[in-house]
């Protein structure tokens, strides 16, 4: 127990140091922007990882909450002149609230039904974003969303948002760790029906599965909402095209890539996901000049297949595999 904690604190410290160091080593705003996207998707994926890896609930609808967060922030700041930070809080709360209400409907479903129900949420909200012109600005969305500012300092440069987003990520990571190894975390794991949990036993011990499914769904939505809010204040633009089907699939890939049931997995997965994608963008034109995209897409597909084949339990399982230890799951 003790040394588990110790290794965690050690890795957290290491993580924070790396995060702080990167901008000193990496100057290019392009790479910093990659860092920003990694951070944003890591936030969404953390929530999904709690939902999938711990409570065993699949969601193909995280983009909906990412979008809700983004639009709440955008609308409050643009139309009501609310302070961006306040807007961000509202964004998180409102995403969670929506998740709570919708969760009461969809979380009564399981497996594929849950998957398709959440996929439905993704499509429904995309349509709302694109169609509700008067509120969301339609397909062109809303440009010119105010930037965030701390004290007097206006956060304009990418590196500011890099630090901001990763600071949020760190806090939320710690929060998530605390949840995971608390009574709540155990309650979640106890209802993870296809990974060693048992809803029957959980109920017999006084745990109401529905309650915890909804709670963790709300939490994941709140994470996504915060990510969405950060995203629009950084880009100072919101368009529906950022919240389509793929935006729901990426976190699924990231979580599985990193490894379900590991919070670090979400972050590692996000990092690898974007670095590899951009790596392809950089390398493939060199290997095969004159190409545009299609080879990237192919490489990307193959890459997913290979990871699923050789690391079915994700990147976090690499150490175990190296140690030749059998991975459980």
């Amino acid at each position, binding site marked *: 127990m003790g040394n588990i904690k110790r290794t965690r604190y050690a890795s957290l410290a290491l993580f924070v140091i790396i995060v702080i160091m990167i901008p000193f080593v990496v100057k290019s705003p392009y790479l910093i922007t990659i860092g920003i996207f990694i951070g944003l998707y890591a936030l969404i994926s953390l929530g999904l990882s709690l939902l999938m890896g711990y409570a065993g609930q699949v969601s193909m609808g995280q983009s909906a909450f990412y979008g809700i967060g983004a639009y709440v922030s955008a609308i409050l700041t643009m139309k009501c002149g609310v302070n961006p930070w306040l807007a961000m809080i509202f964004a998180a709360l409102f995403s969670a609230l929506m998740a709570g209400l919708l969760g009461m409907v969809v979380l009564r479903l399981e497996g594929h039904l849950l998957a398709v129900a959440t996929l439905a949420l993704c499509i429904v909200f995309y349509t709302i974003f694109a169609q509700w012109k008067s509120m969301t600005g339609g397909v062109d969305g809303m440009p010119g969303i105010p930037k965030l500012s701390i004290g007097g300092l206006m956060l304009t440069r990418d590196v500011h948002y890099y630090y901001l987003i990763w600071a949020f990520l760190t806090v939320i990571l710690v929060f998530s760790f*605390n949840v995971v190894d*608390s009574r709540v975390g*155990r309650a979640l794991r106890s209802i993870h029906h296809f990974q060693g949990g048992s809803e029957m036993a959980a*109920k017999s*011990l*006084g745990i109401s599965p529905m309650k915890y499914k909804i709670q963790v769904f709300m939490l994941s939505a709140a994470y996504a909402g915060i990510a969405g809010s950060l995203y629009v204040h950084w880009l100072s633009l919101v368009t529906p095209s950022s919240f389509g089907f793929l935006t729901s699939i990426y976190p699924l890939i990231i979580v599985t890539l990193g490894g379900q049931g590991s919070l670090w997995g979400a972050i590692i997965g996000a990092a690898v996901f974007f670095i590899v994608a951009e790596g392809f963008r950089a390398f493939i034109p060199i290997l095969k000049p004159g190409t545009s995209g299609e080879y990237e897409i192919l490489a990307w597909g193959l890459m997913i297949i290979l990871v699923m084949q050789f690391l079915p339990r994700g990147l976090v399982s690499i150490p175990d595999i190296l140690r030749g230890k059998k991975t459980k799951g």
Partner: protein
Amino acid sequence: MKQMSRVADSKESPIDGTPILEVKDFHKAFGGLVAINRLSFKVNQGEILAIIGPNGAGKTTLFNMINRFQPASGGEILFEGESIKELSPAHVAALGIARTFQILQLFSNMSVVENVMVGRHLRSRGGMLATGLRIPFTRREERNMFDAAMGKLTMMDLKEEAFSSPLSLPYGRQKTLEIARALATEPKLLLLDEPAGGLSTLEIEQLAQLIKRIRDGGITILLVEHRMELVMGIADRVIVLNYGSKIGEGTPAEIQSNEEVINAYLGVEF
């Protein structure tokens, strides 16, 4: 605290008359097949009541109806005089009914001690925010849950395996662990679903001791079993089920001399 005190005063007189659980003409039918047929019985405060019967006698169904996994098709069920017919399983557990399972339902995605800590769920309060922010209260609570769980493990001498996976335990120990987990909820009534199933004679001996110890701790026990050596050894009263209906009730001695029971079931034993 309340039920603590009640447990305390029930300690002085392990067996008194007041029923803790009362089942009134319970009925359960799956389609045409009748699983439980107009069954009525009482479980007295602090006693060990065994329900025996051949396989398919509806024993597990009965348990599932008592802790509300399955709705009863008819009848009434009172726990400490209150109807629990409409409550959710979690609510029933909160009232103080814990159970084990014929097919083990341990959480293989947690360590042994964590399994028992889940048992402490009802006795702790920290919500998602509180635990996430790790406010002093929840830290204290976590520590208490851990200590309590370790206490239970020590009682079942599972202390050594506290941090290993439940699946690494031998089958008998896994069953004990499930009992420990159920006890962690501090129940007033403990339902044991075939606890002796698949155990060696020696293990059954230890189990019998354990169950007695639990009862002496003031917890009423209702067990379903068809391993006679266990039942006859520890039960205060025995109820015999056959095809969902009660064909006999009484002390082990009376049961062993009950004609109908012998014909229906025990015959094979003698």
